[in-house]
């Protein structure tokens, strides 16, 4: 399995939300539905407060519980990669994947089927970055193949301190945050 990863530098992210807008535009998402979002984390005690911005989405886990829980095999991996997609023609909207995802990263489309971030696989297929990565004004988002030691994401993770969300779930999330 080829592992694609997204690496987000939280020291550069300013929380502008351009990634959210780019995703909505690229994927023509209807009003009120979002595949990505930005979280502002504040830690510490006043006046020693620390702020971190995180652009979040589906983590395209290497061990995706949503895929394992889907009873109709509507959730699948794209072309033997870790990119997890949903086939609307197979999705019944039973909600098992939503219940199984610890990141609450899935959503129900107005038509009734479940949807989620696709890492813009239609752009990846053409050698482009996902829309959120391309649109980031601070260039804090990076995308690439994790299994290639020379890729930007591999080099960043090899040299910088990083974390992934809810690593303890064992899902092996593939969105990393440089801290």
């Amino acid at each position, binding site marked *: 399995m080829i592992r694609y990863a997204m690496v987000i530098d939280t020291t550069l992210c300013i929380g502008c939300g351009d990634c959210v807008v780019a995703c909505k535009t690229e994927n023509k998402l209807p009003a*009120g539905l979002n595949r990505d979002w930005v979280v502002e984390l504040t*830690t510490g*005690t006043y006046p020693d407060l620390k702020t971190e911005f995180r652009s979040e989405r589906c983590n395209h886990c290497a061990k995706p*519980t949503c895929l394992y829980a889907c009873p109709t095999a509507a959730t699948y991996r794209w072309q033997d990669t870790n990119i997890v997609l949903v086939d609307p023609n197979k999705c*019944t909207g039973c909600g098992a994947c939503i219940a199984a995802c610890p990141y609450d990263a*899935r*959503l129900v489309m107005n038509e009734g089927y479940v949807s989620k971030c696709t890492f813009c696989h239609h752009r990846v297929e053409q050698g482009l970055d996902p829309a959120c990565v391309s649109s980031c004004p601070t260039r804090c988002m990076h995308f690439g193949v994790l299994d290639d030691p020379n890729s930007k994401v591999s080099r960043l993770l090899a040299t910088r301190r990083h974390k992934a969300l809810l690593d303890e779930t064992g899902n092996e999330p593939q969105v990393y945050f440089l801290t």
Partner: protein
Amino acid sequence: MREEILITVRSNPKIDPTVGIWGWHVIADLFLVGLTAGALIFTALVILNRREEQFSFTANRLPLIGLISIGLAMTFLFLKLTHKIVFWRFFGAFVPTAVMSWGAWLLQLVILAILLLTLQGLRGGFPALAGIVDKFRIGTLALDMAEKYRRPIAWASVVLGVIIAFYTGSLMTSMEARPFGSSGLMAPLFLASGLATAAAIVLIGTRDAGERLLFSRTLFGVVLFKCLLLGLTLANLANGSRVQMEAVQLVFGGEYTQLFWLFFVIPGLLVPLAIEAFGLRKKARAGWMMISPLLVLYGAYMLRQLVVDLGQVSGHLHYINTYNPALLELLR
């Protein structure tokens, strides 16, 4: 301090502010499937012990109630699906890692088993209905066949009853992302609850004193066992992972405390247990004895309601969402 705020709009329906993808349809489905499981087990045990004449309601009438229950459960399940047009996809694949896929296929066997159990008891339990079925050649053949193979059907029904009741609990257990329900004790707890609902139905329906006494004892034992399992489930969660410990706090001082104890444990478990205990010592009035099974049914529904709701509320992430969805309407 540690505060995580969503600073861009996130208001995905049924996801925000907390996951609410499974509502009353699923809760009613779990309740009714539990009732069917209990009906399968009790009817089958009566048949296997050759006590059909002694416990005629359980042997002949209870299966029809189970059949209606499973029919309603399937209807609710269908209504719950948000993309109904492809509902048949449940039967287009078998996904061994998906508990719901197991359920979809097992339910077909359960429907067949409860249908056959209903047919074997139709002539004895519902003669008028059996008369209508008997008017058709295929109906007569089905009734004859079900009566002839009564015991093999009963054996299969016991096994399927236990499995399907376990399935309803396992569905909760399998969702590690929903910590309150992810205890391994959910399967036996849901089995005990299913047995209690079926026993309650017998107590409501039967007119036979002997059958009433047996199921009064059964109900007392099963509800007592259910209390024990519930206590162990809470202890299991309290000794679990960080998110499980946080989840169980919802009923120990958290926002679900009153609902859990005052509206579930006391009226749905302890009161019927006390009534049945007094009844078995012949110290309870007949009126109270009718209330007890109704409270057991209420308690069984509430158990599922709480497990599903608390499971969805107790996720891994707790972002503060300051977005007001009503603002969207102003833009339209």
